[in-house]
């Protein structure tokens, strides 16, 4: 009843192929974007912006990167954290070598380095797949982590071994470094994530995205139909690593402010993996849902004991949230392997026929 496309006639092919062919979806998206761009920066507290919304957007972008590789191209990767690290470190190097370069350009350029590294470690995917590939990405993870510690050039030979984000300005407004307000950082990160999501959505429904999905569903059939596995797989690795790299750069420059190698360790890779699984493999909406779920759940759990004046240690709640997330991953894999995104779709389907569930 509320979500019904009756009466929305498509009169041109362009209409028919629109990204969101249903009017309600378009309106819904506009409302969400309006809230995100206009309402949140005004009403939300600094804490909400800088410790919930900004990390959520960063992880959503990283999850999109991993989902492109895992959900769309069918290549399992456990090295997301390291690819994010490549983005962060190259962003740091670029902005210290070329301090006058616009920070937005630096952020977007840094993804290319990550893409290059991703292609190199994606090369084995041409010969192997599945679990074996997971291990090569694990090799990438540990090797790159080691590089971040041992190659002093990457962090300008700091004594701390950490990368400290310098202050950079855009239109005279500090956007990185300690003087940047949460509102500016939030708006910039939101813009980048929104634009990159739009790009991803269009790439995924275009020729390249379809060739990835063909490779995922059955590589031999895809090859027979003229998809070149070499290009399809390596482009998936490049594209995915680009997104992860930009997410990593944003993570350090817009959220953490400074980062050591621990920010990119294997647990981090798993975190993004969980977001993709719970959100739903092969769904962009799912990436946002998964990121929100995994990031916000521990925050809510941490807030429960004080609210009820229970004397539970923060560490205990952390362990409980780890159990809950683990159990949910198993639950989703058993009950709904397509994750929250599928639940959302089912919900929309229900709304469409409500209140007459049999009237289709």
């Amino acid at each position, binding site marked *: 009843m509320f979500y019904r496309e009756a009466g929305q006639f498509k009169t041109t092919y362009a209409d028919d192929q629109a990204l969101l062919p249903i009017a309600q979806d378009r309106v819904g998206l506009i409302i969400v974007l309006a809230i995100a761009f206009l309402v949140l920066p005004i009403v939300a507290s600094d804490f909400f912006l800088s410790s919930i919304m900004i990390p959520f957007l960063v992880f959503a972008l990283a999850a999109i990167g991993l989902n492109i590789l895992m959900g769309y191209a069918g290549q*399992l990767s456990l090295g997301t954290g390291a690819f994010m690290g490549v983005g962060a470190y190259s962003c740091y190097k670029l902005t210290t070598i070329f301090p006058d370069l616009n920070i937005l350009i630096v952020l977007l350029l840094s993804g290319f380095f990550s893409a290059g590294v991703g292609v190199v470690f994606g090369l*084995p*995917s*041409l*010969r*192997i*797949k*599945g*679990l*074996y590939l*997971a*291990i*090569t990405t*694990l*090799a990438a993870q*540990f*090797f790159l*982590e*080691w590089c971040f*510690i*041992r190659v002093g050039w990457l962090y300008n030979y700091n004594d701390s071994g950490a990368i400290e984000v310098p202050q950079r300005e855009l239109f005279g407004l500090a956007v990185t470094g300690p003087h940047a307000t949460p509102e500016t950082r939030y708006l910039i990160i939101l813009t980048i994530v929104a634009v990159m999501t739009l790009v991803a959505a269009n790439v995924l429904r275009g020729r390249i995205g379809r060739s990835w999905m063909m490779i995922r569903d059955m*590589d031999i059939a895809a090859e027979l139909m003229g998809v070149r*596995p070499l290009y399809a797989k390596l482009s998936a690795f490049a594209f995915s690593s680009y997104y992860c790299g930009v997410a990593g750069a944003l993570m350090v420059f817009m959220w953490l402010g400074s980062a050591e190698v621990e920010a990119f360790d*294997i647990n981090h890779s*798993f975190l993004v*993996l*969980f977001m993709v*699984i719970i959100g739903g493999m092969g769904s962009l909406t799912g990436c946002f849902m998964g990121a929100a779920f995994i990031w916000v759940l521990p925050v809510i759990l941490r807030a429960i004991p004080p609210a009820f004046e229970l004397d539970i240690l923060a*560490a*205990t709640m952390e*362990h*409980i*949230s*780890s*159990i*809950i*997330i*683990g*159990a*949910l*991953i*198993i639950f989703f*894999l*058993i009950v709904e*392997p397509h994750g929250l995104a599928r639940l959302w779709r089912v919900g929309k389907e229900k709304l469409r026929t409500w209140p007459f569930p049999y009237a289709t």
Partner: protein
Amino acid sequence: MEALMPALDAVFLAPFRDMVSLPDFLIQVIWEGFVSGILYALIALGFVLIYKASAVFNFAQGIMVVFAALVLVSLFDMGVPAWIALILTIGVMGILALTIERVVLRKLVNQHEAILLMATIGLTLVLKGAGQLVFGGEPKTMITEELGFSTGSSDWEVFDGIVIFQHIDIAAAVIAIVMVAALGVFFSKTRIGRALRAVADDHQAALSVGISLNQIWAIVWFASGIVALVTGIMWGARSDVSFALEIIALKALAVLILGGFTSIPGAIVGGLIVGIGEKLFEVYWGPLFGGGVEAWFAYVLALIFLLFRPQGMFGERHIERV
């Protein structure tokens, strides 16, 4: 060329000169590598057991090692005598195996192996959270002496130097060898062992001749739980029992690539190659890279191996080429 010579020398000759000039040190390094290799091999053995029977790549093996060791130590701390604690821990691992089979595996029969892998990653999180919740996050000391292992060491004088052998390391090596032999006999001679191999070959065919998949899976998870317990004891004796072990357990993945996913001897040989290789590389070539190369040596070795022999040294050759 002139500038290149010292670099080539540093990479190809100097390490070997170091080895020859201090042979007792070399033996010590190889022994250390051998022992850590045994421990990698034990973890890999747990992986192989489960992979053989159910094609599940059990990511949770590392955390199972920690979990088993923690149960054992905590029971002892509560005042249970060491041997009874050991038996109780075996019981706990049995219950864990039954639960996993009932709650997770039975529901995921016939799923793609990547799905199963991710399910075991979820299992890892659950076990990790539960372990930390129940036993606390601090490292604990393994009850080595109480279980009857000597904690002393023997010296061996050779090449004008001394090589030190910890008794617990020798025990670890012996136990690992006995365990592999026992598993080998179990797999090839007993009724259950043959049923396990049948299941590994083809689930449906095994079902059709009357083998119970559920039973086999519970047994195999129990077996790898016991392997995890032994690994936990041995590892705990060398360092403390802590959750840091979980990351080290990932090295078993590299071991599996070298040895092959389905081969028990492969797990042992792969473990030894990784253990000895990374110690030698760290000690003799590590300084060239600035140290710390142990962290990635195993994986990069596995990566190179994958390019040339993806099925591993002893694995079955049915890897799907793309």
